[in-house]
């Protein structure tokens, strides 16, 4: 029999339902694997008891003949950006270290209501700011992957949901929550050979999720394949009256609606995504994806998204602007860290607390955000960026006149080594070049594994859909996934 930890969400759910194994066995197997993989630093906090309690409840309900919950028997990892009642929630920052919320985020509550259990709180880039998981106060997350060139360079699992991607790729959990502000679900999924979908902005409640950039932040699932993502997303999504930007819509039955045929679908290839110096392997993967889409019955059309080149600069104005405001509440007054030098006044306390509590990348973005919102520069930066954002959304609207979905690479490269780009913030920001435009437009987008590069590292393909067309995105993802037949997995070296 296969190891339980080799099973994905659907297999675990079905196995528990059918009685092939118990939920407690599943929870124990994953918890043991989490405990044995501490070198990856994927978890900030491990919560085997939480997973076990949910498992016991699943087994009890099954024995009692009750109707099974959608995720009964499935333990998951929770990105430490989601507030979890009674469990430390830090956003990987020093300033929130030791903060234990008295409330549960809507997304995590939805998952517990669906029967899932929690294996632990997953590491991430501090306040979800970063593309490599090197900005966490709790240390870097290592990717389980290694280059096949004989070197042992530790690789980035992507960011900000790097703990989530690493844990799934290393089979520490079958699925995890992620959040995506400019690509933080899709890029780490691509780096680690797993699937992840950012739904339409407003599908998942932001209530109880530590805010980075409110107009962009969106929770979504990360899992080993498209089907598991669909199951997870169904459990996570839904209208929430506590979030004024939440969409007042029923959650579609995405799993039941899965269909890998792309017959009658037109897939757009945006010409502006052919960026300078794109590695040949990425080009080749993209072409491969196009061929797979054709094979699934799609018609391929070239489209133009003319404002693409302004997306990254606009994003790196809007996101820091919102972040500078959202993070103002971490001032040393009410929770977490408080640094009060002798004789200090209120302003000094703020300054000392924030100097000690925030990492460099967070400080950098707060400074950028404060600058672009300041009275003298607001129009030059924030207003302009907001206009660009509108133009980018209009680009997509125009593209939908000729196609149903867009196909692009997820990231401009495979995973890089830790430390390789951390000295150059701008080079790091370029990682988000393909994921940011759809974030600015609030569109659903997903990454699925497409193949490996010359070092055997995973590469991802991205599908972008119309607002609310998660089903179309998932279906195209499934079509590509079936054709890619991605079976590579990280060798267990830890």
């Amino acid at each position, binding site marked *: 029999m296969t190891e339980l930890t080799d099973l994905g969400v659907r297999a675990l759910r079905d196995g528990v339902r059918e009685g092939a194994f118990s939920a407690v066995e599943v929870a124990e197997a994953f918890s043991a694997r989490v405990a044995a993989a501490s070198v990856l630093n994927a978890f900030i906090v491990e919560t085997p008891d939480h997973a076990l309690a949910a498992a016991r409840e699943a087994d009890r309900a099954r024995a009692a003949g009750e109707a099974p919950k959608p995720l009964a028997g499935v333990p998951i990892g929770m990105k430490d950006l989601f507030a979890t009642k009674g469990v430390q929630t830090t956003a990987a920052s020093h300033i929130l270290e030791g903060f234990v919320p008295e409330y549960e985020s809507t997304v995590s509550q939805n998952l517990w209501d669906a029967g899932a259990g929690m294996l632990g709180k997953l590491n991430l880039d501090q306040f979800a700011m970063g593309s490599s998981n090197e900005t966490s106060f709790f240390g870097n997350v290592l990717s389980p992957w290694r280059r096949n060139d004989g070197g042992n360079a530790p690789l980035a699992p992507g960011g900000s949901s790097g703990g989530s991607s690493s844990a799934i790729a290393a089979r520490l959990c079958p699925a995890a929550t992620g959040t995506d502000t400019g690509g933080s679900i899709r890029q780490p999924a691509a780096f680690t050979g797993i699937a992840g979908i950012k739904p339409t902005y407003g599908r998942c409640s932001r209530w109880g999720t530590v805010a980075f950039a409110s107009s962009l932040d969106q929770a979504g699932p990360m899992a080993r394949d498209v089907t598991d993502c669909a199951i997870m997303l169904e459990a996570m999504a839904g209208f929430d009256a*506590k979030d*004024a930007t939440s969409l007042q819509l029923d959650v579609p039955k995405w799993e039941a609606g899965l269909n890998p045929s792309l017959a009658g679908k037109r897939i757009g290839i945006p010409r502006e995504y052919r960026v300078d110096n794109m590695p040949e392997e990425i080009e080749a993967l993209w072409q491969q994806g196009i061929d797979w889409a054709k094979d699934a019955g799609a018609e391929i059309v070239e489209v133009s998204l003319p404002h693409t080149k302004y997306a990254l600069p606009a994003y790196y104005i809007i996101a820091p602007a919102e972040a500078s405001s959202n993070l*103002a509440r971490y001032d040393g007054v009410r929770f977490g860290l408080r640094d009060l030098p002798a004789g200090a006044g209120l302003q000094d306390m703020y300054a000392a607390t924030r100097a000690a509590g925030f990492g460099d990348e967070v400080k950098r973005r707060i400074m950028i955000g404060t600058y672009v919102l300041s009275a003298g520069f607001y129009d030059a930066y924030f207003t302009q960026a907001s206009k660009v954002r509108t133009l980018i959304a209009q680009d997509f609207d125009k593209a939908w006149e000729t196609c149903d979905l867009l196909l692009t690479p997820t990231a401009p490269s495979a995973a890089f080594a830790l430390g390789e780009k951390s000295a150059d913030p701008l080079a790091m920001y370029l990682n988000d070049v393909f994921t940011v435009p759809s974030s600015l437009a609030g569109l659903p987008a997903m990454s699925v594994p497409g193949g490996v590069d010359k070092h055997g590292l995973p590469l991802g393909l991205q599908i972008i859909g119309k607002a609310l067309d998660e089903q179309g995105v998932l279906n195209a993802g499934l079509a590509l996934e079936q054709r890619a037949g991605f079976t590579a997995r990280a060798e267990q070296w830890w």
Partner: protein
Amino acid sequence: MTESTYRIQGATGEWEVVIGLEVHAQVTSQAKLFSGAATAFGAEPNTQVSLVDAAMPGMLPVPNRECIRQAVRTGMAIDAQINRWSRFDRKNYFYADLPQGYQISQLYHPIVGEGSVEIEADGYTKVIGVERIHVEQDAGKLMHDQHPTQSYVDLNRSGVALMEIVSKPDMRSPAEAGAYLAKLRSVLRYVGSCDGNMDQGSMRADVNVSVRKPGPNGEETPFGTRTETKNVNSVRFVMAVVEHEARRQVEVLEDGGTIQQETRLYDPDRGVTRSMRSKEDAHDYRYFPDPDLLPLELDEAFLEECRASLPELPDAKRARYVAGGVTLYNAAVLTAEVETARWFDALLEAGVAAGPASNWVTSELFGALNRLGKDIAESPVSPAQAAALLALVADGTLSGSLAKQVFEVMLETGQDPAAIVEERGLKQTSDTGAIDAVIAEIMAANADKVADYRGGKDKLFGFFVGQTMKAMGGKANPGVVNERLKAALG
């Protein structure tokens, strides 16, 4: 006279005062602007604070429909433009009583645009323009005097909905500023959008004052530099601030100085304003659209519901009273406070004549309440009981003086007037036989005065009336007494 002639006399001539008010009015609602927390006044510190008000990580604001509704109704009550599309902005600044580190307000797109308020000051009527009304969150309260080294924060008020009502710089005298604030308060209380309790801080004004030399023939000259005096919490203080601040500015200018644009505070104990902070440390607030909130879009049905829910407002009510026979003065007195008007309306509904009723309310009732130290909402006599009393006067059952006696008993016992009349036999009598008998006795006992009267001392007539009424225990119908006395005295 239709314009203020209020001038400050300086050594270099007359100065005109220009005044604008920014009034912060706490919206009457059970819950805060963006959370479900309660808003009752006087609660224990930090007992009315939700996770949202405390800005815990991941908390999000959700607009409270009732607060929006009250702002719209207020705008409608001052004939203002209601903006179908408005937007919340964040105003970012660090302060310990501001848990989020920003205030949610409406800088660029307020919910209510231009409107106006009609005032009466010094015997003339004037229309004061309102620039806008926007809704925003209140901050918490900091207490620095509770502990030697720590500051205490009370977040009960944090997130409470405020309407900021910004006037145009249309006022020209302390009287106009006072009348504007009083009228605004009256309108808010009629609408029910703010309780207007200025001493509890639910309404306060920032007073902008500048002075300038008046132009020839009443021409407008450019505004001078203004100062803003913060958080003034009574009509009287607003007038005092205007007066003091205008004089101070004139003195500074006449001494060759310049006015600094600055924020000042009013010290009611000393009756002066003093500098609070100057422009140099003015904040760069860093406004931008709040990304947690969608723009507010109001539909026609909502606006219609707001409009339909508006009560009759003071100006309309006053006109109605006057048309019903109430003097302009009485009408103004009766409509100034919503509770008074409500009480008077209830009285009218009981079917009494408006004119006599208004006289009775403004003299007898107000006098009694004043004596008892009660306001009209606490009146021991209900409108229905008052109507019954007035009806007994109207139908001749009670004389004016008997009515006063009955009213005193009503105030003491809360009894209905008919019962009092019955129980104490206070009914007026027009029985000419009884009256004539008493008159005969009095004339007999005062033969000298009868002779004097008949000799031409007309003033003695009042003496005979008084004696007769006294002898009859005040119950005689004064008209009949007059008539019979005239006949008897010849």
